[in-house]
């Protein structure tokens, strides 16, 4: 089973070792700037889907259909967010033929938080960090074989991530 966090057996040791390793990593991206020319395609952004205020509307705008709950969708989210500004969320599935993953936060001003396109050869697993305005259900959507599957988990937020 893939778990975003299980590959960290001994944190104390790791954090100490990281001092040296992290330093070595400094700037290794800097020199590469000149050879980079590819630019992300702004037209790929589904503006309409990101404006929706319900799960159903967002799904319709993004995929044009609705989702069914599935225990094969693995949503890893904290029970209580340490801070709504940075909530680590991971979604993974063992289903075949996955083409997309989306994450929704139902109580946020806009429901859809992030969507990912998964081409063939890329694993159906993603981890990211999201903002949550308040306690909310988080819904993970997996698009596989032309169908949508979902998993839901409530995340309690005591310190909201929308500032103020």
């Amino acid at each position, binding site marked *: 089973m893939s778990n*975003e*966090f299980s590959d*960290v057996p001994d*944190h*104390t040791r790791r*954090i*100490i*070792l*990281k*001092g*040296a390793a*992290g*330093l070595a990593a*400094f*700037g290794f991206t800097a020199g590469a700037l000149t050879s980079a020319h590819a630019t992300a395609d702004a037209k790929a952004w589904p503006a309409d889907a990101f404006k929706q205020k319900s799960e159903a509307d967002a799904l319709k705008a993004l995929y044009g259909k609705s989702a069914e709950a599935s225990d094969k969708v693995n949503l890893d989210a*904290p*029970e*209580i*967010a*340490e*801070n709504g*500004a*940075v*909530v*680590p969320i*991971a979604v993974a599935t063992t289903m075949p033929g996955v083409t997309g993953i989306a994450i929704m936060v139902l109580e946020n001003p806009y429901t859809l938080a992030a969507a990912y396109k998964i081409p063939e050869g890329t694993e159906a697993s993603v*981890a990211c*960090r999201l903002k949550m305005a308040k306690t909310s259900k988080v819904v993970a959507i997996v698009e596989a074989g032309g169908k949508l599957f979902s998993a839901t988990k409530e995340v309690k937020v*005591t*310190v909201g*991530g929308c*500032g103020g």
Partner: protein
Amino acid sequence: MLRKTLIAVAILAGAAQPLLAADKASDPKADFKAFREYFTKRFPKVALDDFVNGPYSMDAGLRKQWEAIDAFPPYDFVVDKGKQMFAAPFKNGKTYGDCFPNKGVGIRQDYPQFDAKSGQVITLDVALNNCREANGEKPFDYNKDDMAALTAYMAFTSRGKPMNITIPKDPRALAAYKKGEEYFYTRRGQLNFSCASCHVQNPGNHIRTEVLAPALGIMNAMPIYRSTWGGMGTVSRRLRTCNSQVGAEPLPAESDEYRNVEYYLSYMANGLPISGPGTRP
């Protein structure tokens, strides 16, 4: 009527007074032993070196989120900025490295220090500003991002190195230590809290929405990137926030009281690894 109550309180306070501060001779070594025993006995499951991870040493749910975030922490950019700032020469061609032993790399664990010349405690932040001024540069604001970035980088180069605070045989050094201890245990603000109320008596417990960090090793994680701030903050910024949270007007950054309490707490953490820059909710 009111005034009478006030007087009554004052008399009450003055009368029942079993212990006097003066009765207790300052013995940092004995304090150190008692302090350490208190935390290790109260939290037998927390590894000694783990106390430096603050609330994450106390709460499994928080820890998991921290580990996920710390795997590629948002403060990476701040540390990088600090590194560049640290290497950039002043107008006179010298650098921060010229002000410190070992060119300033891997030395954070030696601060704060007692400075015999000024008779005061010098924190890393103060040492950095002293360095700037000695080289004809304006000092940084102790509460702001530039100082946070510089100290974050310096802490980063000291990751894992044991805190190494000395109290030289100088009555002024001992007095500074003692003043720091006093500040730590003195209740203040409208809420009538001391630093110890939260960080000795209630580590691991929630206060409003936060899980309180243990006092042991609390300075080892400084400076800290707080999600609440959305950025890296200095020791000064954190201490001033602590004051505000108990309804006390914060003191000026790096005032005697703050430097002394940092001295006291850092001495208590001797031997524990530097974990800064830390992340906190």
